């Protein structure tokens, strides 16, 4: 069986554990230290009761609940606590995988009674970290993940061969991981409303209507293989960063500075994994243009932030001479290959040495200790 361990309102619960004054209060964790202009990263269960959830703007959240408590996200502590939970779970000796910063999957064998074991894990997490987790248990990873959502918070749900159809019939199809609004609508139009409706459809039906994704969905739902089969290599398919600005702006220098910062962050991660990327994707979002994304493949792969930035600017130039209002932006690199090339020319060698030195400095003194001057412009939001 697979145990899917999902921390309940992870970031908000940690903040409530740190600060007892916030316990049992509606609380949001914002992606940045700006109460009115940020996005909700996590909401406590008391805030969720007001209809507040992750992804919502903090302004909307405050409208729903004016006495909402606010804490800016402290990434460092969430990462550390997540790693400690992973290490603690590793100690049980079962095969274990991260699925996100606050979700873990464990493949347990018949030597333990699943429900009792899940309760033991919950108690240990609470004792060591003062936060709660919900656990889903099922025959494969997708159903276990679904089960973890059924009895939140601090609950356990087990999907067995005997109760599977009964429970799936009560759950809306949108609860399945990977079924978003668009897919949910397609399925709804086909008369697939519940998870059971989906479960009973054939592989052919799902492939005909949802393509390859539908076929994979069928396999994941019916798989007896406990963990999702590993990809042939653990190399990622893409590396990207995005950011939502406090408000929309059309100041070209400011927007370009953000593109440069995101390009540098992407490049640093590519270099850390010794990868090159030959395709750059730039994504912009604004009140007038909506979502605008374009990508371009280049002959030569790169992991140099300046080059990725220049490539992003080429894509941006297609938008037209006038900079539209931008609220959010993202840079993603794909077409990833191992970096097996040695620099041929003196200028390339110098550039590589420079990048290695920058990485060393940031590795020693912390990320963002040294950066290109243009990035300094991102520190101040322009008035227009």
């Amino acid at each position, binding site marked *: 069986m697979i145990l899917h361990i999902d921390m309940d309102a992870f970031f908000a619960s940690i903040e409530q554990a740190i600060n007892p004054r916030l316990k049992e209060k509606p609380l949001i964790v914002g992606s940045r230290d700006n*109460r009115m202009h940020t996005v909700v990263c996590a909401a406590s269960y008391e805030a969720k009761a007001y209809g507040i959830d992750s992804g919502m703007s903090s302004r909307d959240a405050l409208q729903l609940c004016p006495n909402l408590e606010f804490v800016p996200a402290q990434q460092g502590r969430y990462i550390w606590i997540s790693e400690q939970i992973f290490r603690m779970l590793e100690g049980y000796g079962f095969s274990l995988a*991260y699925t996100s910063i606050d979700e873990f999957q464990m493949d347990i064998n018949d030597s333990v009674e699943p429900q009792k074991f899940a309760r033991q894990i919950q108690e240990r997490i609470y004792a060591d970290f003062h936060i709660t987790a919900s656990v889903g248990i099922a025959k494969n990873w997708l159903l276990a993940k679904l089960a973890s959502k059924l009895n939140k918070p601090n609950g356990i749900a087990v999907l067995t061969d005997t109760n599977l159809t009964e429970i799936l019939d009560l759950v809306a199809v949108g609860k399945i991981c990977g079924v978003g609004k668009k897919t949910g609508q397609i399925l709804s139009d086909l008369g697939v409303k519940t998870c059971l409706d989906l479960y009973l459809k054939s592989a052919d039906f799902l492939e005909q209507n949802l393509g390859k994704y539908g076929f994979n969905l069928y396999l994941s739902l019916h798989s007896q293989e406990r963990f999702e089969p590993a990809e042939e290599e653990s190399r990622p398919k893409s590396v990207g960063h995005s950011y939502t600005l406090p408000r929309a702006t059309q100041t070209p220098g400011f927007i370009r500075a953000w593109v440069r910062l995101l390009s540098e962050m992407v490049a640093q991660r590519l270099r850390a994994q010794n990868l090159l990327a030959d395709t750059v994707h730039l994504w912009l979002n604004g009140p007038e243009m909506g979502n605008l994304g374009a990508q371009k493949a280049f002959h030569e792969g790169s992991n140099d932030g300046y080059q990725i930035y220049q490539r992003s600017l080429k894509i941006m130039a297609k938008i037209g001479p006038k900079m539209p209002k931008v609220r959010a932006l993202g840079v993603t690199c794909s077409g990833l290959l191992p970096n097996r090339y040695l620099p041929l020319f003196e200028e390339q060698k110098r550039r590589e040495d420079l990048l290695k030195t920058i990485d060393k400095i940031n590795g*020693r003194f912390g990320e963002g200790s040294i950066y290109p001057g243009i990035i300094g412009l991102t*520190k101040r939001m322009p008035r227009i």
Partner: protein
Amino acid sequence: MPYSSFSPKARWDRHIHETGEEKSSTAIGRRIEVLVWFKNTRANPRLFIWNNNKYKIKEITYYWQERRGQETLHCFSVSTGLDLYQISFSSVSLSWRLDKVIS
């Protein structure tokens, strides 16, 4: 294994800084002296001195670590009964700091 390339570190934009405007934190960042009691390999701060005033720690509400380059910060949220503070010990400078007043 599901999502085998996931790393919690890669998910976060750790060096994105603030873009001006309102801030809610009450950062202090001052060096302090701390009296620590060590028990069962764990450090338990009992008292700290800031601006020549002694603050007796009644409760350690949480402990965690943060990394800044090669430096590890051992962070504690501590309550004096009246206020809640975040203090940290640096593995590089071997010194204590009062990071902020939490509430």
